[in-house]
């Protein structure tokens, strides 16, 4: 009996264990002022974390450190307890400006996301096309990016990021390069995919400077200050999805974030 209880406790602990741990990250360009100072937070399983802060405060740099693209000056980022020193399989990335290669078609761009997989070209092709279909790009599988609208480009970017079934998705202001209506549609699609478990991704870390966007999507909001970026506050948002921007609790949460940002 006692053993069983212990087992359960352990299970809970495993479930609650952070997928990504950001530990005391400091970043400075050599010889220059510190950009990011001692940032620590974590993203748990099934958690959507937003990092919000003023423009140019180093949010994107922080995200790239998590992706293993940039080395921090000190501190470390752990993924399932292992330190990230370079991009790893299982963590994927969505770019602000889509990051599509202009000379590759949608399908070819998505296939880049499968580079590490040891499956045949045909299978890769099939998988990429299937996903593009699912994500609402049927008929544009062989189009080059410059004929696609901003929203469509970001859908390709998203498809490329999730095609390899990653567990963690890092998003760098993913909705800021498209118009507000498109962004709205994209956001609800992302929420739908995540919350209804349509994709493998369980944890998301998103950088944004849009308070409403952060409140709409996140379980947890990390509020950063400007120059250097230090954590001002970590706010958890416990509102049921899908969230209406007009509800009282939404506005309260948003006010809370605004207060933290400006305070």
């Amino acid at each position: 009996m006692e053993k069983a209880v212990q087992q359960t406790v352990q299970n809970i602990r495993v479930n609650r264990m952070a997928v990504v741990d950001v530990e005391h990250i400091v970043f400075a360009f050599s010889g220059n002022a510190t950009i990011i100072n001692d940032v620590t937070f974590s993203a748990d399983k099934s958690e959507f974390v937003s990092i919000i802060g003023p423009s140019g405060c180093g949010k994107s740099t922080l995200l790239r450190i998590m992706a293993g693209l940039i080395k921090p000056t000190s501190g470390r980022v752990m993924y399932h307890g292992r330190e990230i020193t370079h991009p790893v399989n299982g963590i994927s990335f969505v770019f602000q400006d889509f990051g599509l290669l202009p000379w590759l078609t949608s399908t070819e761009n998505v296939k880049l996301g499968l580079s590490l997989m040891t499956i045949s070209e045909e299978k890769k092709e099939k998988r990429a096309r299937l996903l593009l279909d699912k994500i609402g790009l049927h008929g544009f599988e062989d189009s080059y990016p410059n004929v696609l609208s901003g929203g469509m480009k970001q859908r390709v970017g998203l498809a490329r990021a999730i095609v390899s079934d990653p567990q963690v998705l890092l998003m760098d202001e993913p909705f800021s390069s498209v118009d507000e209506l498109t962004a709205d549609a994209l956001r609800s699609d992302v929420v739908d995919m995540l919350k209804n478990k349509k994709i493998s991704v369980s944890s998301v870390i998103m950088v944004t400077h849009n308070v409403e966007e952060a409140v709409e999507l996140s379980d947890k909001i990390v509020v950063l200050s400007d120059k250097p970026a230090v954590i001002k506050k970590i706010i958890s948002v416990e509102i049921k999805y899908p969230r209406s921007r007009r509800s009282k609790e939404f506005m309260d949460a948003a006010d809370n974030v605004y207060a933290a940002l400006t305070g």
Partner: protein
Amino acid sequence: MSSLVSLIILLLIDASFSWIRMFIALFFSIIISLIIGIYAARSETSGRIIVPILDVFETLPILTFFPFVIIVFVAPGILPTYIGYNAAVIFLIITSMVWNISFGVYEAIRTLPKEFIEVAGLYHLTGWQRLTKILIPASMPHVVEQSALSWSIGLFYLVTSEIFSTGGSTLYTVQGIGVELTKLAFSNNLGAYLAGIVVFVIFVVATRFLFFRPLEKHFNKSGMHKSSERLTIFKRMLDFDTYSRILKLHRRLSSQAKPETKKIQPEITQTNKIRKRSYRYLYVMAAIALIGVIAYLFVLYPILGTYEYEALISILASLARIWFAFAVILIIAIPLCTFLIFISKHSESYMLLFQIIASIPATILLPIVALALSPYPFHGELVAFVVFFLSGIWYIVFSVIASSRTLSSDIFDIKKLFHVKGGTAFRKIYLKAIIPGLVTGAVTAIAAEWNASIVAEYFTTTAIYGGTLVSSVNIGIGKFLDTSLSSGNLTLMFIGLVNLTVMIILVNMFLWKRLYSRLSKIYG
């Protein structure tokens, strides 16, 4: 020791003379360009005529202007010989410099935001004020950019400019680094020649850093320019002259220009389209006129048929030579550029090294190349190959590097994030990323090779030591032009030039423009 000192003093004096000529030529080139460029850009019809003419003149080799120079500056004897010679040399340098800068001014005015002109109207500026307060300042960043490029083209023709000949007379200036280097190379004094090269390179580098860079900095401060450039990774890389040429070409060749909304006149929202139409219009007119005149002349003078045959054969031979050299350039440049852009961590140091090497024009190296290769069979062909190779390769390398600066830094992140490796990375990322730069570079490289043919294919010491033929190919348009000029047969030379021009225009129309419009559909 004292001989070394006196040699260095001699070289410094020579280089100074050359540089003074270059600066005077640059000054006049800028004045002329401002007049031509602003005039062409401000009026639709004048642009339609002037731009294609500039395009044609730019492709003509410098010796086209030799007879003119003799007739105007030297033969009449109005000017004292010394001044006459120098004026002639400066004029020849101008003919190699002015076209680029004119295009720069033209582009600057055509892309000038409409508001600037509206401001002029609102505040009732006079014509002169418009010129000095708006049009000229707006052109200056482009002028500086193009001047740096024109400078290196001017250096390429320095030797040819300082020694010019027509008919029986060969004239050369007393002081000049171009003349001096040629002399040294043939005096069998390798050490002195190398010292000359070193002095030359020092002058080039000094001009770059003490003259052009401060100017560029000054005129870019106003932020008139390149404002749309995205965050790029190679921003810190040293600028090279070709970059501006690439941008210019890119604008000029891309037939599918994105509609730019803010232009001087609302009706010219698509400059390139109109320009394309204007080209076609002019080409057709010129072709019809030309065919008529030629047909008449051929009937009148049957010997022209022989001339024409000779010219065509010569052009074909040169075409084969030039494209072969170009193929070799590609084989070397593609891996090299891929390495520099995507793999090397020290690409900036390599670039600095390449820029210094590239600053030595092939024409200056020609004497030593010719001497070094003289024991080998087919040495005329070898020399031509080396000169073509050297005149073309840097355009490709610097064009690709320059266009890689507009690549989004995301590309590098993509490669790492999605673990794209080896062959896939080369095919899907590296190769495709450099293609636009490769094509623009190819256009300039091939043009440079054609221009170089007059020195590559036929090289004599006529100018200085009375007529030893150092190296020559059997047949080629460069040799054709050189020999027809030195034998005083201007008709023959003219026919060669017309054929060369037509060929260059045809290749532009049927190869490069098509390739460009195909690429711009994808690369946008």
